């Protein structure tokens, strides 16, 4: 290697090591910060559901539940819309539509989340309360998921807002994965007499499924950690209810809501432990997504 190459390698290595150190440092800092709470509550912190700062009793279960459920709603909705959009953009839309449309969809990712939150509070929540909620209840009210009073804010509204926020991620990545499927496959399928619909659903999507799955998990990762927009429409009640119309709470929302005014050390460390749980969940989800995407790339190489 020439000296220049060696220097370049050192810089690049240094950069990646720095990132690794940052993550490790963050983890260590979170564990240290949550130590009083880890010591006081032990693992029961994860399955207890009281959140009472006055009595110094803390449990994370309602927030874990709220985080997981809103993110699942988001990913189900976003996957459906995002994959449809990706198929259209990659295989059906003429270029003069596809280019500006992809641009617009990706622009959605640039909208600040507080704007989504305000829109959610003033437009979406009343819509859920007066139209979407009652319609769902009319059809599916016999299941516990859609029973009970409709407040407007709650798990469903939080999930819909999150879905809007992660659709750009899911669409953009899925579109690239679909575009990467070799033309020969499509031509072979068409040559055998398949329709466009059959080609898309039976040939292209199955071939791209792992990459699309990866796109969804990346979106899910973003949904798990999203804070402000969800805080504004989730209802902020640390409670587990079967109904998707019920107010709930997410890990990130509690931290955003209560950290600035938390004073006792146990309270602060309980909030940091919520951060630790969120950190671990996000790492697992993102690692899964990476793995999936690598497998797709690997199989193509």
């Amino acid at each position, binding site marked *: 290697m020439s000296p220049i190459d060696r220097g370049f390698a050192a810089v690049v290595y240094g950069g990646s090591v720095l990132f690794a150190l940052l993550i490790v440092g963050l983890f260590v800092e979170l564990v240290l910060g949550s130590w009083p709470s880890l010591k006081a509550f032990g693992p029961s912190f994860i399955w207890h559901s009281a959140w009472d700062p*006055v009595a110094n009793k803390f449990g994370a279960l309602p927030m874990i539940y709220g985080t997981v459920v809103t993110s699942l709603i988001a990913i189900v909705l976003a996957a459906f819309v995002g994959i449809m959009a990706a198929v259209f953009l990659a295989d059906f839309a003429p270029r003069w539509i596809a280019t500006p449309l992809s641009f617009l969809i990706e622009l959605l990712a640039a909208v600040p989340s507080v704007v989504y939150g305000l829109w959610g509070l003033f437009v979406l929540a009343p819509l859920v309360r007066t139209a979407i909620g009652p319609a769902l209840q009319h059809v599916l009210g016999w299941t516990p998921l859609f029973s009970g009073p409709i407040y407007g804010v709650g798990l469903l509204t939080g999930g819909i807002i999150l879905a809007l926020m992660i659709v750009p991620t899911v669409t953009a990545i899925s579109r690239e994965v679909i575009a990467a499927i070799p033309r020969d496959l499509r031509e072979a399928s068409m040559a055998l007499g398949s329709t466009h619909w059959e080609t898309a659903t039976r040939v292209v999507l199955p071939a791209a499924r792992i990459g699309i799955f990866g796109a969804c998990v990346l979106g899910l990762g973003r949904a798990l950690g999203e804070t402000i927009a969800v805080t504004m429409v989730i209802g902020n009640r640390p409670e587990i209810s079967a109904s998707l119309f019920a107010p709930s709470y997410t890990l990130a929302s509690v931290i*955003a*809501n209560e950290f600035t*005014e938390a004073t006792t050390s146990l309270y602060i460390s309980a909030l940091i432990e919520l951060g630790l749980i969120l950190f671990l969940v996000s790492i697992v989800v993102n690692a899964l997504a990476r793995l999936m995407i690598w497998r797709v790339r690997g199989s193509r190489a």
Partner: protein
Amino acid sequence: MRASAALVAATVTALPAAAATQLTGAGSSFDYPFFSKAFYVYNQKNPNVTVNYQSIGSGGGIQQFTAKNVDFGATDVPMNAQELGRAGEPVLQIPVALGGAAVAYNVPGVSATIKLTREALVDIYLGKITKWNDPQIAGANHGVKLPDMPIVVVHRSDGSGTSYMFTDFLSHVSGEWKQRVGVGKSVSWPAPSSVGAKGNEGVAGQVRSTPGAIGYVELAYVVENHMPSATLQNRAGKWVSCSEATVAAAAAGKPHVNPNDFSIVDEPGAEAYPIASYSWVVVYKKPADSGRARMLYDVLSWLVSAAGQSNAKSVDYVPLPANVQAEALRTLKQMQH
């Protein structure tokens, strides 16, 4: 040539005089609108001092103050013994701003102002009263046709001094609330139909967009947004609405307010609005830098004076009553400057 040299000399000598000292403070977001207005006015009169106030929340303000990163802190609830211990040296706590919490509601079809007894408000927040036409509410509102509509209880989801004064009031009125829930900036809200919203704007937005909702917001917020708010029965049994005058009356009834006895909820005066509270500035008794200490003293003594407090009105905050201004100044004078 000579002219420009003179100009340079003039600029150089003028610089030290023009460079203003910047005092820094951090804490309560409740104080922010009042502080930014007041400190701006102060700077217009005293161009040599600017005050930079960071509205990061009371908890953060106390931390920054304890770490000596700022000249003063501001908090909605005075620092307690544990926090004072962490500060490590004597601290002075001075009441600087006064606020009240109005009870806003959204009851379609009712144009008259709804009256609530203290007990009814507690029972609504405990989840015992669940409908607007409950006899406990109807009993105080003769001639008003209240709908058979479920009540949605809205509270602040972020830790806030407004929640503190509200739960302080509920605890004063009800032993059950005191025992089951308690007083705090964040509490475990017991009503099954309760919803948490972030900030005054969040609570107001939630109330406005949810028929049947009730929620508490800062006085300034209902005034500026023209929201209907309930008339409450105070301890004297009189009906009072939340206004600058009634909140000031609550404060004036307790002139010797201090960090150990700071609560002014449920005051006995006939005019007193029952949900009110001070916000406090904290300073070290012996600041390290005597030059800055002098300036800080000047700013704060102006802030608690009639001239400083007059800025509260223009942002719909409540000026401290004259007797509390005097008390605040007395405390401040202990500061070494």
